[in-house]
């Protein structure tokens, strides 16, 4: 049985990665298991300078999911390079850094630094719904995505993945912008913009009023979008949104994802990613699949 995949030039021992912002820089979960079991670790969204994030409350539970408005709190790329990267490197897994900026120049500056680091890939976050400037502002038009991605592509030699927001009318056209700009892959979806109201206080629960929805609640939307994007572009897809089991992962792969990512699923059980790897192997056994890459995009439409 072969679970290896090649995602945008990154050789992974299996298709299971952990999603940005739900795994920190790996330390906390390494108390529970060997990070070397994962296909890759995708870091918390990291910016040029440290960011302190939004006012609390920053998270709240919703039906089969949660809203967050963390606001990209992170220690900045320099701190990451000196403290977290050497730690992560101790494990036999691939490291993909989720990069965020608030202007094109900032994305470029940041990626110039990332290009010099011992990492396996960069995931451009053009899709965070929780910060005022940047991110999603570039992420919701074909032109916007293409412009940032092209500028970063020029200076980045490492595999470049662009993460898409689902808060758009036509996800396929946005993915096309990524492909046309020369990126190696897309990842989707980031969180769906949502809101929850405390009916007694008559105010939104989150201090930021709105937040990003994640968890099993968003899975059908994510699967549909992965399918649409897979029909529109030829670059590989990292699929995510609500995955908490091997079955969920297989659904994304059939829809067209080469690799998948576990996000909020890490919170409900630190072993969700490991169980997902086991679940994928079980499915392979049950369905007599020798190579996991054989099932990518194999859904047949009715």
């Amino acid at each position, binding site marked *: 049985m072969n679970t290896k995949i090649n995602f945008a030039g990154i050789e992974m021992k299996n298709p299971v990665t952990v999603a940005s*912002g*739900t*795994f*920190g820089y790996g330390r*906390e*979960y390494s*108390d*529970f298991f060997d990070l070397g079991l994962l296909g890759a670790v995708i870091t*918390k969204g990291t910016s040029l300078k440290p960011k*302190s*994030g*939004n*006012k*609390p*409350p*920053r*998270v*709240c*539970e*919703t*039906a*089969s*999911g*949660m809203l*967050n408005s*963390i606001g990209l*709190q992170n220690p900045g790329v320099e701190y990451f390079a000196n403290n977290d990267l050497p730690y992560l490197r101790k494990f036999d897994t691939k490291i993909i850094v989720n990069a965020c900026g608030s202007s094109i120049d900032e994305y470029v500056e940041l990626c110039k630094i990332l290009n010099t680091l011992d990492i396996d890939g960069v995931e451009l976050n053009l899709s965070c719904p929780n910060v005022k400037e940047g991110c999603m502002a570039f992420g919701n038009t074909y032109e916007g995505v293409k412009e940032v991605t092209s500028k970063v592509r020029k200076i980045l030699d490492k595999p470049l993945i662009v993460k898409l927001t689902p808060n758009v009318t036509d996800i396929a056209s946005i993915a096309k912008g990524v492909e046309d700009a020369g990126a190696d892959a897309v990842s989707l979806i980031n969180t769906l913009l949502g809101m929850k109201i405390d009916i007694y206080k008559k105010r939104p629960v989150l201090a930021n009023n709105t937040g990003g929805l994640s*968890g*099993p609640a968003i899975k059908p939307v994510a699967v549909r979008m992965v399918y649409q994007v897979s029909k529109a572009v030829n670059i590989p897809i990292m699929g995510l949104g609500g995955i*908490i089991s091997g079955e969920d992962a297989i659904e994304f792969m059939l829809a067209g994802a080469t690799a998948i990512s576990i996000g*909020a699923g*890490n*919170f*409900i*059980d*630190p*072993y969700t990613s490991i169980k997902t790897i086991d679940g994928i192997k079980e499915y392979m056994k049950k369905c007599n699949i020798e190579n996991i890459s054989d099932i990518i995009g194999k859904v047949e439409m009715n």
Partner: protein
Amino acid sequence: MPKKVLAKLIKKEEIIKGIFKFSVEAKEIVNSSKPGNFIEIRVSNQKDPFLRRPISIYNLDKENGILEFIFQVKGSGTNILSEKEIGDKIDIIGPLGNGTFKIDKYNKIAIIGGGIGIFPLYELAKQAKKQGKIIDGYLGFRNKDFVMLEKEFKEVTDNLIITTDDGSYQNKGFAIDYLKEKMEKEKYECIYACGPIPMLRVVQKYALENNINCQISLEEKMGCGLGVCLGCAVKTAKSPKDKPEYFHVCKGGPVFNAKDVEF
């Protein structure tokens, strides 16, 4: 280092209406727990309720590897938890939180708690008492129907003062007012507090103004409980007005030095 265990429920008691005390077998967690630590409970295997529930450690029975926690039924999560039966396995991660109650250097201390905020103070008082410290307790409740654990706290304190807001049981008024009155004479070296935010604000203000050491246990909405999602932010006291900086309750806390946080 936190562990995930399936802890067997061996004793369950509704101590007052809607408030349950659970005793579970969780040797792996008990051995490394400190007063002030909390646990995260997954109340069901279903997708809903989605997140784990943070609950404080009430009592550690190190000899028998038994952990006790007490919780109030609030919403769906605690309601499902309250329906567990003896023998059921409960999915718990713990111990969590690097900010715990520190006792070592003080000899005369006071604990002050309000309502369901009194739970994490018990293990602290128990350990302090065992170390021969002098410890006074001030516990405030809404009215006589909400008074709980009086006997238990009596055993681990030298003096225990119970207050009710309406005077329907023992002393009328707020616990902090009784503590302030005693402070003149008792000169506590440190105050340990947990309870509703308005109470904690009063305790914090009093401690800061009078230069008294004070450790406060805080709550905030959490995603992961492990320090990963950065959800449970609490503002640092030092941060400039226009550029707030944050600790996280699950990692830096839940217990903070009162002078370090703004809430």
